[in-house]
């Protein structure tokens, strides 16, 4: 049941990402990648499985964003780091058997985890895409604005779901 739920969630996020969020633009500064919510909230699998799932999700995203390898690299990175970060934040990790959510890991921990992973993911994507630091301030601004919107969507949805 949980597997189905996760797949459906990914598909919904993918459709939202491709049909809506990829077209926001906003003077080239606003490029939120809300689909990473699927990776952040996924239940904790064995770590190798976690990374392989992230690899395939990234590849699918890359197909839609026409950027072979960029999202794949970013997704694998956050899938590798997620259990490490969670282990540092949550004492009894074995208790988290369902999705990673506000209920299962606590509000404070969930917010911290999401912020770190989102910032990292967006940084990797924007740096690889630009391929240069020549427009550093624009890059920085794009990173901050896009991350803020992604976080707003993910945390907003999670909080509503929690209540």
């Amino acid at each position: 049941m949980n597997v189905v739920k996760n797949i459906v969630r990914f598909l919904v996020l993918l459709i939202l990402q491709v049909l809506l969020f990829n077209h926001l633009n906003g003077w080239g500064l606003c490029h939120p990648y809300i689909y990473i919510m699927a990776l952040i909230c996924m239940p904790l699998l064995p770590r190798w499985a976690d990374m392989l799932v992230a690899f395939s999700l990234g590849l699918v995203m890359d197909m839609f964003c026409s950027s072979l390898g960029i999202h794949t690299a970013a997704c694998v990175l956050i899938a590798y780091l997620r259990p490490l970060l969670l282990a540092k934040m949550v004492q009894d990790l074995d208790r988290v058997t369902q999705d990673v959510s506000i209920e299962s890991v606590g509000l404070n921990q969930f917010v911290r985890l999401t912020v770190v992973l989102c910032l990292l993911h967006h940084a990797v994507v924007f740096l690889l895409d630009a391929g240069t630091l020549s427009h550093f301030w624009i890059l920085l601004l794009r990173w901050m604005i896009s991350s803020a919107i992604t976080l707003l969507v993910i945390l907003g949805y999670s909080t509503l779901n929690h209540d």
Partner: protein
Amino acid sequence: MQNLLRFLQRYSNFLLFIVLEVVALLLFVLTQPYQHARFFSAANGFVTSVTQVGDNIGDYFTLNRVNRQLAEENALLREQIVTYQSLMEKHSEADTAYHYAHLRWQFTPAKVVDMQTATAHNYIVVNKGLRDGVQEGQGVMSHDGVVGIVSKVNTHFALVVPLIHPKMNLSCRIMRNRQQGFLHWDGPNCRYAGLNDIGRHVEVQEGDTIVTSGLTDRFPQDVMVGVVDKVTLRDGDTNYRIRVRLSTDFRGLEYVQIIRNPLSDEHQAIIPKE
């Protein structure tokens, strides 16, 4: 051996992480120059069909604007027909200049099916390809002005490198005084580009119209490119820094014309090769 196995077991996750990252980065690096990667995925059937669904839905919301534009364009074209008809009546059928002009440019209408306007490497995919006679190097324009140049074609689609791409250099003129320069984009904003190579002796004003120079075989002369938005000249500069507001709004772009020049081969053949 035992130690090696223990090592592998202990760091298996980290090793898998490294392997997957290397594969991802290899994919990224090997598919550069990016056009190939973009084309590979942007024009492949499944992805295009999904983005097309979104497109089809989006089409309904813009029908109003598109209709208005088409009506305006119709009116303009009708006006031109009237002018040309009167011209034709004036000049005899045997006028070679008329036949030459007729031979010179042909247009293929196409619809934009995929587009990236916000990254450092923008592109446009349109729904006409080899089957419709589209070839690499052909110019692309919309009713607002120049859009870009076809850089890759397959059977049903063509990839257009737009003006708002760092690798584009378009030969342009200032309409008022016929001075020639090159349009180049390196900013993040898809409404503005720079015009280079205009020397300080030239008189340039804000509001001057920039058009194609006609010095290539890709665009007819005097196709609208944009309007001078800001002119700066610092001490010691030999050339102006000119910011041009592009007449094409890439984010609202839906229909374009691909320009075919039947004399292009002859044009290219006569240029001396190094």
